[in-house]
């Protein structure tokens, strides 16, 4: 979140190159150019990243063209590759994760920004942020030994007996697969969505809430009818940032999704994501397979870029709301 600071408005006292007094100091000039040189590194890295990956994936792009995105083949024997199963796996697991995580994350955000007594906000907020600090591979470990048997023994049979008529819950389920993958992703993106939503809600002008309460609204009505409609785009931004994280998550989902190259409607089926396929095959691949995997990485880069930029614009716009910007 952008916080307002004094010098946002005081451009005049900080000319980029003109000193306030006297001659240009040599030290200042050195600092200026040296700083610019080092700051340029990040631009160079990004440019190199894009160019390098484009170059490394060129063999695949020139062989398969745009059809790469729509082909469901992944056949190293015939050197015939397509990204569709992984695009599908990534999108479905990420959307599944959002469906599970968003309601919970909004609940947490509302609790932390509107309902919790102030002494509780810090510790609970910190705990939620710790959730984001646990490494992906540790979630994966827990996924294999706790979540997988739990899903196979309890969740799977319950879903099968109640919603088994849906195409979503067909076939055998041994605890590995799309459903487990989406669930573990949802745990991992929850803190992102929750903490950004909390900041967005806090940025809403207090007058909205106070006005509604003064008119006799209950706490919930004040939130639901006065606050939420005004921060909607910020919340969408928070969800998109969570989505950006879900799309690129690798280790935990690689460990529980089953790593099958397949497109199936059933959430019980094993699947692969763009990230999991790269994690599984990159170190043993060569030639065309390496180029195809690199092209998948490039597609993953493009997709996350799209969502992240969109999300930032939305969150940033909410922060700029007139009268908003209550600091956290």
């Amino acid at each position: 979140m952008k916080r307002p600071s004094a010098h946002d408005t005081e451009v005049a006292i900080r000319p980029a190159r003109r000193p306030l007094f006297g001659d240009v100091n040599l030290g200042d000039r050195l600092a200026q150019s040296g700083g610019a040189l080092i700051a340029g590194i990040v631009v160079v890295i990004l440019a190199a990243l894009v160019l390098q990956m484009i170059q490394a994936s060129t063999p695949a792009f020139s062989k398969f063209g745009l059809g790469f995105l729509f082909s469901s083949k992944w056949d190293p024997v015939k050197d015939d590759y397509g990204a569709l199963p992984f695009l599908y796996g990534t999108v479905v697991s990420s959307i599944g994760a959002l469906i599970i995580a968003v309601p919970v994350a909004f609940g947490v955000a509302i609790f932390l920004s509107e309902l919790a007594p102030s002494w509780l906000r810090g510790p609970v907020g910190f705990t939620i942020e710790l959730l984001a600090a646990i490494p992906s591979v540790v979630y994966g470990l827990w996924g294999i030994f706790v979540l997988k048997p739990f899903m196979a023994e309890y969740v799977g049979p319950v879903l099968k007996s109640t919603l088994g008529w849906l195409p979503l819950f067909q076939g055998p389920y041994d605890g590995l697969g799309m459903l487990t993958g989406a669930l573990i992703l949802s745990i991992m993106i929850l803190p992102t969505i929750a903490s950004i939503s909390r900041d967005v809600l806090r940025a809403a002008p207090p007058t909205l809430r106070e006005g509604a309460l003064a008119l006799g609204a209950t706490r919930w009505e004040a939130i639901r009818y006065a606050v939420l409609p005004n921060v909607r785009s910020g919340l969408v931004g928070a969800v998109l940032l969570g989505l950006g994280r879900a799309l690129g998550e690798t280790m935990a989902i690689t460990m529980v999704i089953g790593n099958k190259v397949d497109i199936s409607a059933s959430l019980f089926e094993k699947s692969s994501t763009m990230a999991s396929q790269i994690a599984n095959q990159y170190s043993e691949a060569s030639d065309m397979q390496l180029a195809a995997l690199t092209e998948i990485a490039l597609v993953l880069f493009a997709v996350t870029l799209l969502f992240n930029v969109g999300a930032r614009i939305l969150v940033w716009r909410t922060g700029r709301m007139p009268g908003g910007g209550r600091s956290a």
Partner: protein
Amino acid sequence: MSDEELGKAGAPILHIPTTLGAVVIAYNLPSVKEPLKLTPDAIAGIYLGDIKTWNDAKIAESNPGVTLPADPISVAFRADGSGTTGVFTNYLSAISPTWKEKVGAGKSVAFPAGSGAKGNEGVSGVIKTTPGALGYVELAYAKQNGIAFAQVKNANGDFVTPSTESVTAAAAGSLASMPADYRTSIVNAPGAGAYPISSFTYLLLYQNVDDAAKGKAIAQYVWWALHDGQKLCAPLDYAPLPAELVTKLEATLRTLTAAGQPALPKA
């Protein structure tokens, strides 16, 4: 290496078989105590996704008297590229025309069924932690992790338990058809007691090494590996080479050169 890869290498390369390994069909069926017997048809059917449950007729017919559960088979395969997958798919292509046409053989293939895991450890892990699972791993991984593995019907029609002896038998059975550069597959080898999913493990050596000391050291090491080293194979669940093959390899090793000079003393 394929002919194409050899061409790209830029210098002559020798393939030296050093030991033999078996790929076993490991499974997790707590209720079944007897070792499972599998026919080539059943293995191909399972990996093609045609055989979906443990009590399928194709499995039951070779296991009379065994009560097989009606549970689904959780098939496991290697998600990364690997020699183990190469041997296994080579075998499937040899015994199943459908597999050869639909999937083929390679270090990494498009598996029609099952779930992937990384490494021999990963596949063993999936099998061990998933009741009803079946997968292919190297013999050593199944044995040392205490995972049950199946007897497989070989070209002679016998059900053979994978072991260092039955693997050496497979190599002996295919010596007759061994090409001069040793690049061969011994899957589905003929001969009584030959385990059908076996393979050589090769060392790749440059025919000539420019550094004389290095070249000699390499040649001497390989010589050791083919003689004294063979005794160390079996305790690690790899099979020693048949004696007849070692004699052939001695001649090949003597063609190695270090800085243009023979790397080993004359016999």
